[in-house]
C-alpha cells in the first residue's frame, strides 16, 4: 500500500492496526526493557491485560527524566548490534537524551516523513532545500530521508551561512524549503536586502516548518514573504524526530496515528481528558523497536480532534501547541531548560552567581543571552580575568546547550532592578512577535 493512503483508512481499520501494534509494543517493552518490566510489575500489569485501546490509560507514563536516569541506552529494547543510528538532544544537567533506531525504525521514520512531504505533493522534479541542522539533532536527517523517499532532489544545506543558502536556493531552483519558521523569515529578509523579490525571483512553492512554536502571525509572514504555502511539521526526538504530525493543505495538523497514539491528559492528575480539551500531549509509539516508548509525556499543551478533516484524512488532528507544562524554552529550534544554564554556571569554579536568561529577537532570529552578576567572589579587579570568565562561560554553555549563548556581565542588583525579583527567565520575543 502507498504509505500516503494510510492517512485515509477507515477508523475501524486504523484502530485495529493500532491495537495490534500496541499489544506488540507492550509485550516488547515488558520482556526487553527492565525499566518497564519493573514499572508494570509495580502496578500488577501484564501485557495480556491490554485488550483494547481503552486499556492504554492503565499503562504507566514515561518522562524525560526516565530517559536521563537510563542514560545512555538503558531504555533501548533492541540489542546494540541492531541499532543503526543514534541521535540525541541536549540534556538538562550535562547528560543528553539519547535515542536509538533499528533499521526498521529508520524505515518507519522515512515513511512518516514521506507522508509529511505528501501533504504538499512533493515528488520527483521537486528540489528540497533542507536547512534543518544535520547532526545529532533529528531535524536534518529526518527531512533528508523523507525527501529522497518521495523522489525529490535534496539539497542538504544544513544551518548557517545565510547568503550561501540563498545562492543555493536560487541557483538550484529549490521548490520546497525546510527549516524553522523564524529562519525562513530571516532568509526572506536577507534576500530582500540583496535586492531580490523572493516570491518572484525564487521557485519555492511550499515549505515545511517546525522545531519551534509559531504564531499565526509568523506563519502568515513566512507564507507571504516567500509567496508559498506553509506546512507545519511537528515531532520530538523521543518519539521519532520530525514526522509525528504534519499539516495538510487545509492547515490541519494530522498525527501519524498508526505509528504514534496520542492522548491528552490532565498534567496534574494524569487523567485522560476528552476530545477537544486542552492538556498535556502524551504519545505511545506503536512500531518502534530501538526505543519503544510508553505514554511519553511531551509537556506540550495541545488538544485533539477526531472529526474527519475536509482533506479526507481520518487520522486525528491536534490543535496548535499552546504552551508547556514546564519551563522549557525553544530557542532557534533548540530546546533549552533554565536548569541547564544554572548547571553550567555552578560548574564554573567559584561561581554560584545570580543570573537571568534573556531570550530576545535580533531581527527575526532568536538570541539567547545569559546575564551574570559580577560580585566580589568573581571580581578580581582585572579586565582579563572577567573576559576569560565570559569566554569560558560561553564555551561551556555552547557545549551544554548545543546553541550559542551570549554572556553579559552585569553589576549586582541589575537583574532585580531591570527584571523584577527572582525572575530567572525573561522571554522578550512574545512582545515582538509579528502577530
Amino acid at each position, binding site marked *: 500500500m502507498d504509505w500516503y493512503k494510510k492517512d485515509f483508512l477507515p477508523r475501524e481499520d486504523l484502530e485495529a492496526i493500532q491495537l495490534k501494534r500496541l499489544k506488540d509494543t507492550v509485550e516488547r517493552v515488558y520482556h526487553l526493557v527492565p525499566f518497564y518490566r519493573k514499572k508494570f510489575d509495580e502496578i500488577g500489569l501484564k501485557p495480556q491485560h491490554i485488550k483494547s485501546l481503552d486499556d492504554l490509560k492503565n499503562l504507566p507514563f514515561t518522562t524525560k527524566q526516565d530517559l536521563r536516569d537510563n542514560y545512555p541506552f538503558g531504555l533501548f529494547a533492541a540489542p546494540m548490534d541492531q541499532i543503526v543510528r543514534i541521535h540525541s538532544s541536549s540534556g538538562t544537567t550535562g547528560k543528553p537524551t539519547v535515542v536509538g533506531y533499528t533499521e526498521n525504525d529508520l524505515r518507519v521514520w522515512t515513511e512518516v516523513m514521506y507522508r509529511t512531504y505528501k501533504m504538499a505533493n512533493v515528488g520527483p522534479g521537486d528540489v528540497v532545500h533542507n536547512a534543518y541542522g544535520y547532526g545529532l539533532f533529528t531535524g536534518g536527517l529526518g527531512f533528508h530521508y523523507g525527501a529522497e523517499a518521495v523522489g525529490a532532489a535534496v539539497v542538504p544545506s544544513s544551518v548557517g551561512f545565510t547568503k550561501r543558502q540563498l545562492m543555493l536556493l536560487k541557483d538550484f531552483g529549490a521548490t520546497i524549503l525546510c527549516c524553522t519558521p523564524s529562519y525562513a523569515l530571516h532568509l526572506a529578509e536577507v534576500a530582500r536586502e540583496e535586492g531580490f523579490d523572493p516570491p518572484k525571483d525564487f521557485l519555492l512553492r511550499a515549505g515545511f516548518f517546525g522545531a519551534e512554536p509559531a504564531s499565526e502571525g509568523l506563519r502568515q509572514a513566512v507564507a507571504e514573504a516567500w509567496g508559498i504555502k506553509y506546512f507545519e511539521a511537528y515531532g520530538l526526538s523521543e518519539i521519532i524526530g520530525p514526522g509525528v504530525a504534519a499539516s495538510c493543505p487545509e492547515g490541519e495538523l494530522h498525527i501519524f496515528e498508526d505509528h504514534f497514539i496520542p492522548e491528552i491528559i490532565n498534567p496534574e492528575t494524569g487523567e485522560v481528558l476528552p476530545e477537544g480539551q486542552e492538556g498535556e500531549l502524551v504519545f505511545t509509539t506503536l512500531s518502534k523497536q530501538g526505543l519503544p516508548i510508553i505514554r511519553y509525556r511531551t509537556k506540550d499543551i495541545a488538544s485533539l480532534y477526531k472529526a474527519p478533516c475536509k482533506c479526507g484524512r481520518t487520522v486525528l488532528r491536534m490543535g496548535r501547541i499552546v504552551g508547556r507544562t514546564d519551563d522549557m524554552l525553544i530557542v532557534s529550534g533548540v530546546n533549552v531548560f533554565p536548569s541547564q544554564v544554572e548547571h553550567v554556571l555552578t560548574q564554573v569554579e567559584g561561581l554560584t552567581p545570580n543570573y537571568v536568561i534573556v531570550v530576545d529577537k535580533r531581527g527575526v532570529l532568536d538570541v539567547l543571552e545569559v546575564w551574570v552578576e559580577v560580585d*566580589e567572589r568573581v571580581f578580581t*579587579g*582585572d579586565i582579563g580575568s*572577567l*573576559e576569560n570568565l565570559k569566554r569560558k562561560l560561553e564555551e561551556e554553555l555552547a557545549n551544554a546547550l548545543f546553541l550559542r549563548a551570549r554572556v*553579559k556581565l552585569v*553589576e549586582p542588583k541589575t537583574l532585580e532592578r531591570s527584571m523584577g525579583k527572582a525572575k530567572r527567565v525573561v522571554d522578550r520575543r512574545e512582545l515582538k512577535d509579528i502577530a
Partner: protein
Amino acid sequence: MRGKYAIKQLSIFLENRKGRLKEVTRVLAEANVNIRALALAESAEFGILRLVVDNPEKARSVLSKEGFTVKEQEVFAVEVPDKPGGFYQVVKALTEADINIDYTYAFVGGKDSAILIFKVPDNLFEKALEMVNQNGIKLVEPIFFYGK
C-alpha cells in the same frame, strides 16, 4: 618594603551603561572621599574604574553599601622627573628584571615631577619595589595619597 610602600587601590566593576560613572562619583562625593588618582579600563561591554583615594576603607564601605562590586588591590607609586625619559627609566628597570606590568597610570605630581602608579603581579610585588629602589627611583609612600 611592601608594608611601607603598598598603596591600596580600589577597582570598581561598571557596566557600560548610562549614568554608572556619575553614580560612583556621587557616592564618593557625598561620603566626602577625595579621589587622588584614577584610571578607567574598558572592554566592549564593561569597564573597571581604578581609584586611589584618601580614605580607601570608607570608600569601599560606601560603594559596597550602594551595591557596587569593589576589589581592593595593592599598587605602588614612584615619583620621577617630569621630563622625557622619566617613565622609561621605571619601565626599563622592571622589564629588565622580567617583571610584567599589569597596568600603569600617571598624573603630574607637582611643579617638576610626575607620579606613576604601577600594578604588577602579586608575587612580584616585593621584587619590583627592590628593583625600582636599586635603580635609584623614588618610591612614594601611601601617606602621600591618604594624607590630605
